[in-house]
């Protein structure tokens, strides 16, 4: 008998054995699924957990609706209407002047701080723009900048560091730090913007403020509007930079370790880390860098978020090598390894009984 024939026969035998084994396994276990390993995607309908419309959602919504209605009744019954007399369209200026809604006060502020742009050079008088025009333009520019920030950010990040070759390391090495605490310049710019919007809003009601606090004149307000946000930004930068220089992390280590030590010593195991998992907003960075996940080559799995949803299985819990890369990359600084540690303790306590 030639080698080829022997090989054929043995291959056939091996195949039969494998089939038998598969059949045996299937027969012995009632809970074997058709596909042995299911994809852990949050989009899978069978994995999405929620509350049913009836009765949970219905009852809750009804209660909220009644609550709001009762507040409306209360206000209308006990607070007199603020309109004292009819408006007079013929009056020259209303005082105090009417104001836009509070969320548009910053736009109103933009119009108020604006002045006519005109200047004289060599005896020629130039009139460039009225206050109304460029006050309006500035509003559009602010919104445009907010929209453009991600694009500018990415473009700059790419220019600074085009990123390495391997796909896994893209997230790690390109762009800037994700946590505000690790990037004081960007954080300071953000704080300046927020403070400036608030100050613009305050500036826009200058007439009303003067009415009650005569000391706070318009010129004072203008100066605070200009320099206040800058001061906020500077302080933010100094504080963050100092923290960074100290090597501090967003969550103080002492606080974290105390929590964790107490959990261990008191043996109460209150699942403290599960609350931390609440902070996950599913960016998926942890999944991109997890070395185990990369090597297992499984389908997309958002480790921390799926853990929060009880999507993790025993393998995920026990095959974690607790290297801490997910915590290092996590924008929310979720302590996934501590969570794994806690879960292992709980599982073993359950198994030992």
């Amino acid at each position: 008998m030639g080698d080829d024939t022997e090989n054929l026969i043995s291959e056939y035998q091996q195949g039969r054995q494998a089939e038998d084994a598969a059949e045996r396994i299937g027969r012995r276990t009632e809970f074997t699924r058709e596909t042995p390993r299911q994809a852990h995607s949050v989009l899978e309908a069978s994995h999405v957990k929620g509350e049913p419309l009836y009765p949970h959602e219905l009852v809750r919504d009804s209660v909220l609706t009644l609550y709001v209605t009762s507040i409306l009744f209360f206000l209308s019954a006990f607070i007199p209407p603020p309109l004292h007399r009819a408006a007079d369209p013929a009056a020259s200026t209303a005082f105090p002047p009417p104001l836009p809604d509070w969320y548009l006060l910053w736009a109103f502020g933009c119009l108020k701080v604006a002045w006519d742009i005109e200047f004289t050079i060599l005896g020629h008088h130039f009139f460039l723009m009225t206050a109304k025009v460029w006050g309006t333009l500035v509003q559009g520019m602010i919104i445009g900048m907010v929209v453009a920030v991600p694009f500018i950010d990415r473009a700059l990040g790419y220019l600074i560091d085009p990123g390495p070759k391997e796909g896994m390391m893209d997230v790690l090495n390109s762009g800037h730090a994700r946590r505000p605490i690790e990037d004081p310049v960007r954080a300071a710019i953000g704080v300046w913007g927020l403070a400036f919007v608030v100050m613009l809003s305050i500036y826009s009601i200058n007439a009303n403020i003067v009415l009650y606090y005569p000391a706070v004149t318009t010129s004072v307000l203008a100066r605070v509007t200009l320099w206040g946000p800058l001061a906020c930004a500077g302080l933010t930068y100094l504080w963050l930079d100092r923290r960074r220089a100290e090597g501090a992390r967003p969550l103080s280590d002492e606080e974290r370790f105390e929590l964790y030590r107490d959990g261990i010593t008191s043996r109460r195991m209150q699942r403290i880390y599960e609350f931390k998992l609440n902070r996950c907003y599913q960016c998926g960075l942890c999944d991109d860098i997890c070395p185990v996940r990369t090597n297992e080559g499984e389908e997309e799995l958002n480790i921390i978020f799926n853990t929060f949803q009880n999507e993790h299985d025993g393998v995920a819990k026990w095959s974690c090598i607790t290297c801490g890369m997910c915590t290092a990359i996590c924008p929310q600084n979720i302590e996934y390894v501590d969570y794994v540690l806690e879960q292992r303790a709980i599982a073993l306590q359950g198994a030992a009984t």
Partner: protein
Amino acid sequence: MSRTEPYARTIPHPLFERMIINDVDTPDEAPWQPERQHEYGYFPGCVDFMDVEVKFSHLNKGDADHASIAAAAIKLMNAAGIDPLILDMNSFKCCGHDQLWQGQLEVFDELKAHNLRRMQESGIRTLVVTCAEGYRTFAVDYDLPGQGIQVEHITQTLRGRGLKFKSPEPVRVTFHDPCRLGRMMGEYDAPRDLIQLVDGAEMVELENSREKALCCGVSSMMYCNDATKAVRKKRLDQGTDAEIQVMLGGCPKCYMHMQCLLNEERMDPGEHNHSFEMLDLMQFLSACLVEEAA
């Protein structure tokens, strides 16, 4: 090397864990008093404890003798003018890191109680450990600093002590950050500072270093399987890419796991492509130490 007989691996290593549990179950209540007062204590940990069976001697022919890490550390500390009290296994027990991370809290608590009592009896002011896992466990889980004992990794102790190192030949080295030392304890610079001291050694960084360092793949002796070996191989591949000659680790466990894979590759000569050596930082420094004329 004053050991005559090589120890063989005789038992699969879950029995090693079981042995620690057995050690916990035999209480050691007798008071203990060191012969004299020491400022520094050195905890070699389980390096020689696990040589008994984790040496995988049929794979590496006895090369991965972890006790040499402890011996090198003691030698370096003596050279730096420190006379440490050796907190060895006669009076201490395993630090319990592996048990903690395996979730065996009862065992960990017993070990912790015993070791804490011994620490108080020893009267040391500063505890030095060579192991990154031990460093984390003593500093965080035991909270020794809260009880008046500073915990230092050996690299932090040796830094700035005026030691002189000279490499016998120009060598290209790199440092593999252990997870526990780097990401968990935030110490990246001390080992690098030490390597800078070595005359003739050129330090290169791997593709992933510091916060982004890849793990050696096995923590708390839990797994050695295909997935974790792939992690390890990736790390070693980065070493090949950087064209290093020696990879240095800050933790005996990293050394053990990397060495294990390197040795396993020797069994399959067609496969391996890692032409460098893995050493613990202490071993490397010990080989490079310039003895003061005495």
